[in-house]
Structures are given as C-alpha cells and as structure tokens.
C-alpha cells in the first residue's frame, strides 16, 4: 500500500509529541523512522495504528483519507504492527495468539482450531517463518516470539508492516535473519516502516530514512549517509560517539563470581555456572541479548534473588546470599534494570529517593528518627552536582523525565561511598544527552580506581564502556574478549558459539 501521513499532530497537555509530521511510504519500500528516545516515534506509531487519535492531520492510504476508530480497524485496513514489547499472551499457544480477535468459528461460537492452525501453517510457509502452532508462547525464545508477532500481522493480511524497535532483543545473527525477512516481505510488495534509534541498522536495511527529533521531521536521508551525519540530524548537534577514558591500568581483583548457579521465578536454572573477575579501575561490560540470565545474575549480586550455589565476593568479602541491606552497606552500588520499578519510588519526593538506599545512616537519621533537614540539603547538593533538572527536591520523582530519573539513581549511587558498581541497562530508553551523561559518570567512577560491571544488550554501549567484554549466553559466559574484537565475533558469542578467549 502507499501510506501517507500528512501533518499529524498529537499533544498531551502542554507537550507536543508530534508536530505536523508528514511521511510517505511507497509499496515495497523499507522506510526507516530514525529518532532518539523521546523523539515521538512511539506516539506516531500509536496514531498510525489506531491506538491514539491525532489532534490534527490525516492518514491517507492509497489515496483515500482514512480514520481509525481503534486498532482493530487499523488491522482490518491492512496495517500490521510488531510491537517493541510483544502483544502476545504468554499463557496462550501460538495459534490462540495469532487468531485472537479474528478467530474462525464453528457453530455455537466455538473456535475452529483446525482451520486456524491450517491457516497459520500456510502463512508460515508462504513467508518462511517457521513456528510450531501449538507451542505455548512463554516457552519460546524471544526471537521466535517476534516471529509470532510478525506472523500475527501477516495473517491479518497486512499490507504495511510497522516494526517498532525490533532489534533490541535480538542477537546479531537474529538481526540478520530479521533483515532477510524484511527484504523478502518488501520484495513481495509489502511496505515496511522500521522504527529505530540504531544508526548501524538503519544504514544496513533502509531504502529511505526519515529523521525525527523532538516531535518534528528534520529531514530525510539516504542510507549512504554516515553515522555521524545521521547522529547529528537525530540529536541536533555534534555527538560524541565514543566515550573518552583514561588509560587502562587494571589493579587487583575487587569483585569475583565463581560457579554461580541461580534459578528464575519458575524454578529453571538461568545462571548456569558463571565465573567472572573484575579488576580495580576497570569496567567489565557484560554483553548479551536479554533473557540469557543477565537479569537474574544482577539480582543475585544485589541480594534480591537467592543463589543456589557458587560464590560472590566483593573486596574479599563473601556477599553470597546476604540481604540487600548488607550488600549495599558493604559498598555495592546498584543501578537497576527497571528504574521505575526497582530504582525509584515514583510517588515519593526526589529528596527521599536520593537517600533511598541509606535512610538510616547518619546524618540522615539518628536513632531511628530522620533528620529531614539534612536529607533536604543533601538532596539539593546532589541536584546541583549532578545537574538533575527538577523544580524542587520535594517534587515527586515521577514528574521528572526519564533521563533525569536515571540521573537521580546515578547520583544516589555514586555519591555514597561505594566500591563496586553494578549497572544494568543503564541507558535504556534515554535520550542521547542523558546517555552521554550516564556514561561519563560511570567512567569517572572507573577512573578513580573502582571496579564496575555494566550489563547491556546495546553493543554500542558495550564497546564504548568496556575495558573487557564478557558475553553471556544461556546462563554461561561464552567468552571474555577485549574491545578490539569484531562485532561478528561478539555476535557469534552472543549466539552461543565459543570463540577463543583473547583475554581473561
């Protein structure tokens, strides 16, 4: 289909998320929408998919102005969406998920599962997307789940496929496979709208790139543009794509994990004998696609998840299975993966959040009574030092932007006397400015001679920060290499093949 967005505007109160956005996608074209986090891409997609109604502007499909009452109608008109966070019901089977909302029925409103399954197999074959229709979705790997999402869209006869940040959860090999699928879909006449903030991918796959920034279209580009050209368009200024670090002079081991075994919430082993060392003055970056045990590993380190066997040692002290309180007091700094869930209390003030990990320590409290004056002045100090944008330290932290919320967490952790920092996906969902800022802070911590473990599924970040890079796959460390290793090799490690270790 030929899709045109003309002058789409969407406001949320005083915030204009989309400002007169116009884009054209031709049939058979892979059109990429490039913008950093917070630029307005998701809002635009929700408008296109019928989940939001635009305040101004029109959607034109094959020359006809169209309005969607809800996303069901968008689907019926041929728009399919592969969401960033999958819209799949975990306990349902593949078949149930694919037919949801469009179920073939027999008498008495019964679902005709036989027909449904046959249809799925047919579409599956047609587009070369192998899935087992009877599998339960939550048991499938993330890559296969994504395939189910795509299958779902295709089985509704989508002519335009929107893919929202699809590569965040994929290994480099899986990304290649996805790109092959996209190319073949485009070749068969489907239009593809591919949303991302990743410069490398955009250059690899897009036919046309539209760059959006702060709700506006700033221009289009060819895939032949350089990364720094694209980055500049995306952010509006020159961007430092690398982080400057002092020379790498590792000291003695400050953090050690030996043969760690941890189970997940369902009782399955997800950390299967992990061993790591981190030296003073170094950042060990742990790369790997999400879902290979990194989340549970960090939770185990922070004391939030029980360790079945193995040891964790920090500064010579065994902290395995200690309580989070003791571990934090012993000198661990923790930037959690889900900042809104684990890192902050959204309804409480910025000041309270800034002492969240140490509310009882003097001078914040005295024999069980809090010293609110000290808490406030401490908070004001940190707001100045770490450039946290907030109207007052007594504002609830929920009123801060994502970037500033993360600054609160970073400020809190780095301002108390910690020895070792564990940061999990520290720049997820942040705009470029905040990303630069967080990276800078972590490097400062490292430059002072402290050790850090940074867990990230963004390869750019891994390369930028890591003095050494460890790769995790299926609960094990598949290799520890230095940053000169190629992306292909790291990709292989992320997919499970072991390459010879070039450093340990």
């Amino acid at each position, binding site marked *: 289909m030929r899709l045109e967005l003309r002058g789409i505007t969407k406001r949320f109160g005083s915030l204009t998320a989309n400002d007169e956005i116009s884009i054209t996608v031709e049939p058979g074209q892979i059109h990429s929408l490039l913008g950093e986090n917070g630029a307005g891409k998701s809002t635009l997609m929700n408008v296109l998919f019928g989940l939001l109604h635009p305040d101004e502007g029109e959607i034109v499909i094959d020359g006809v102005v169209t309005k969607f009452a809800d996303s069901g109608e968008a689907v019926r008109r041929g728009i399919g969406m592969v969401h960033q966070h999958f819209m799949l019901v975990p306990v349902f089977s593949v078949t149930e998920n694919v037919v949801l909302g469009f179920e073939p029925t027999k008498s008495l409103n019964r679902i005709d599962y036989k027909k449904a399954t046959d249809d799925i197999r047919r579409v599956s074959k047609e587009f070369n997307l192998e899935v087992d229709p009877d599998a339960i979705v939550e048991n499938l790997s993330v890559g296969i789940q994504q395939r189910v999402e795509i299958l779902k869209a295709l089985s509704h006869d989508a002519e335009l496929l929107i893919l929202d940040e699809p590569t965040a959860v994929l290994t480099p090999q899986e990304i290649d496979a996805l790109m092959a699928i996209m190319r073949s879909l485009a070749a068969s006449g489907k239009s593809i709208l591919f949303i991302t903030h990743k410069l490398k991918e955009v250059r690899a796959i897009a036919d046309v790139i539209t760059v959006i920034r702060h709700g506006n279209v700033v221009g289009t580009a060819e895939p032949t543009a350089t990364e720094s050209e694209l980055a500049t368009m995306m952010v509006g200024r020159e961007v430092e794509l690398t982080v400057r670090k002092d020379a790498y002079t590792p000291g003695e081991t400050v953090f050690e994990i030996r043969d760690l075994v941890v189970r997940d919430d369902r009782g399955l082993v997800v950390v299967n004998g992990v061993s790591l060392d981190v030296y003073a003055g170094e950042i060990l970056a742990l790369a790997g696609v999400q879902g290979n045990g990194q989340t549970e590993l960090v939770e185990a380190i922070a004391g939030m998840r029980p360790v079945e066997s193995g040891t964790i040692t920090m500064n010579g002290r065994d902290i395995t299975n200690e*309580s989070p309180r003791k571990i934090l007091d012993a000198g661990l700094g*923790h930037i959690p993966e889900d900042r809104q*869930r684990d*890192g*902050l209390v*959204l309804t409480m003030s910025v000041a309270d959040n800034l002492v969240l990990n140490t*509310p009882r320590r003097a001078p914040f409290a005295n024999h069980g009574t809090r010293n609110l004056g000290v808490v406030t002045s401490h908070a004001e100090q940190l707001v100045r030092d770490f450039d946290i944008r907030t109207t007052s330290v007594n504002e609830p932290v929920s009123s801060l932007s994502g970037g500033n919320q993360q600054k609160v967490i970073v400020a809190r952790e780095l301002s108390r006397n910690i020895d070792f920092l564990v940061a999990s996906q520290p720049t997820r969902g942040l705009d470029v400015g905040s990303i630069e800022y967080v990276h800078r802070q972590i490097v400062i911590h490292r430059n002072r001679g402290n050790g850090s473990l940074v867990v990230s599924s963004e390869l750019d970040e891994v390369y930028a920060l890591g003095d050494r890079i460890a790769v995790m796959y299926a609960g094990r460390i598949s290799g520890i290499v230095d940053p000169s290793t190629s992306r292909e090799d790291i990709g292989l490690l992320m997919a499970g093949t072991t390459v010879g270790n070039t450093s340990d």
Partner: protein
Amino acid sequence: MTLTSQNSVVVTVLALILGFAVGALIIIFTTATILDAFRGFFNSWGAPGHAFKVTFDNVGAAYRDMFTGSVVDPAGFWHSLTTGKGWDNTLTPISETLTYATPLVIVSVGVGISFQTGLFNIGANGQAVLGGIAGAVVGSMIKLPMFLHLPLTLIAGILGGALAGALPGVLKAYTGAHEVIVTIMENYVIYAFLLYVVLSTPYQQPGQANDIGRTIHASAQLPPIFGAGSGLRVSYGIFVAAGVVAFAWWFLERSSLGFDFRVTGASPTAARASGISPRAVIILVFLISGGLAGLAGIVQVASTTHYVDGTFLIGDAGIGFTAITVALLGRNKPIGILWASLLFGALGVGGRAMQAATGIPFDLATVIQSVVVLFVATPVLVKEIFRLRAGRTQALQLGTQGWG
C-alpha cells in the same frame, strides 16, 4: 502513599454532601409514611406539596435528630449558657461522640498504617475482640493497685491484638498468603473463640449461664473525666487516643521504620532493592496494626461496658470495619483519621439517637458512611457530579492488587 488530589478537602466535603443525599433517598424510599404520601401524589392539587412536606419533615427530622444526638442541641446549649445549669445534658451528645470515637481513632490509625504499607488489614475487628478479651481477663481476674493494673490491662489488650495480627503477618511474610482472606477468616475464628471464652471458660461471669464475661475491677477501668455522677461518659481514654495519634504521626513522618513502611507501600520492588526486608516489614505492620486494634478493644471495654460479652464488637458495633472506612476517609494519615473518626463517631452516635427518636434504624448511618467513603475514594466521580474542573486527581490505589 499520597493521594494526588489537589482539592482533597473540597472533595471530602462534597462526598459528604453526596453521602447525606443518598441517605435521604434511602429514608424516602423506605419510610412508609413518605411512600404513602407519594402514592397519593396525583390525587389532589395539594397532594404533591403535602408529599414533599412529609418528605422534608421526615428526612429533616432524622438528620436533625442525628445532629442534636451527636453534637449539641442548640436550644439546650443556649439554655445552659444563659442559666449556667444543665451542662450535663447539653454536653452529653458530644461526650457520647467522643466516647464512641475514642476506640475508633485508635483502631483506625492502626488500619491506616497497614494501608500505607500496602497491606489490607481487614481483620482489625477480630484483633480488637481478641485484645478486648485479653485485657478483660487481666482486668477482671487479678487484683492490683490501679497504677499497675490499668497499664497492665491496656498492655494485655495490645498484646492480644498483636497476637491476632501475627497470624496474617507471618503467613503473608513466609507464604505470601493473601491477607484479605486470612484476616477475614480469622475474624470468624475469633468470634467463635469469643463465644467459647465467655461460655466455657473460667472467664465467664460467675453465676451466669449466658455469654457474659466478668466485670473488670475498678482498678483497671478508664474512669470518666467528669466523674461518674455527671452522666458524661467521655473517659480518660481520649488521652490514650490522642497519644496514639501523636505517636502514629511521628512514626510515619519522622521515624526511619515508618519511612520503610511507606516505601514498601509505595513500591515493594524498590523497597526490596533498596535493602528493606519485606518479611520484617510485613510482620511488623501486622503486629503494630493488630496491637493498636487490640488497644482499641480494651479501651472500649475499660471505658464503657467494663465487661465483654458474646456480642462484643459484633455487627453494628464492629469498629474494626468502620475503621476501614474511617482510614480511607482520612486518607490513611493520622491527622485525617482523627477528623474522620470524629465525623463517623458522630454519625454512629447520631444514628442511634435518630433511631430512638424516629425509629429509622441506626444502620442507615453506616450506609451513609459507606457511600461517603466510596465517593472519597473516587474523586473523579465527585468532580464529575459537581462539574468541578478536574485537577491532577487519582483514584485511591493501594500497593498490592490481586492475590499476589
């Protein structure tokens, strides 16, 4: 947790108006004389006016009786002011309200603390009963001088309530059992236990075959402030209540443990990540909340009836359930709860007075309470009804949901 409503006082007042309006409707639809008057609505030209007059008279009388029964009768007040006599009668309604509100404040503060931590303590009534039993046993079966006996009795009440609170607390902390079902079930268990105690144990009043327990000795009672002869029942219990409110305020706003409680209520995940032990918090919350409920129970006994019987706190005297609505009305904060208790105390006492005067059952007052609380918990609805501009309001949410 905080309710981010900008005009919470306004919302509360409006919710009250709505509650009374609903109450009026209920009176209209269930009073025979009013219905009869409306049946003849179209009979004659004067009939509608008559119907409205009857309505107005009845509803007005009901609410007027409520007011004079719970706060003050203006005529009587004026009389006492001018002649200096009859103060006992004039002050009785307020005294009754305070007497009713005293244990209510204590238990509601406890419930409010649990709600602020994201835990639903629906068992406050049972905990109050157990505390009342424990205190009454200590108060009636041993003899000690008052300066020892009274504190000991009160402490026994606290311990009894805390013991009752320990069960849901421990179960939730160690098995995750949802406290709503456990506490509700525990209420029924304790009611059965109450009957057992007053019928089948030495605590039963000697010489009685009925379900009445022993009377506590004078050394364990909370005497009325103005002396037994004045007819004003308000007791020294109000100092206990005031102390509880002050303690709760300090605890939640200024103490480190209270901070931990509030963090846990606002975000259990962040609480755990930041080092708070969820188990410890859960158990402590139920111990404190239960202990306060138990204290309320014994204060009730020690200041009013001086004995426990088979109907103690059952049904319409169930302050543990009123406490839930009071806590919600007071937005779980001690000062708010204080005002809410006075208000609902007045409703309760006024309801009884209304019943005595007009025959409308006292339970109407509790229905009004429920309606008010429902509206308070839904500020958006109140604003829609009154067409206020919506501020940044948010419906009342507590920390946990479902069976987690």
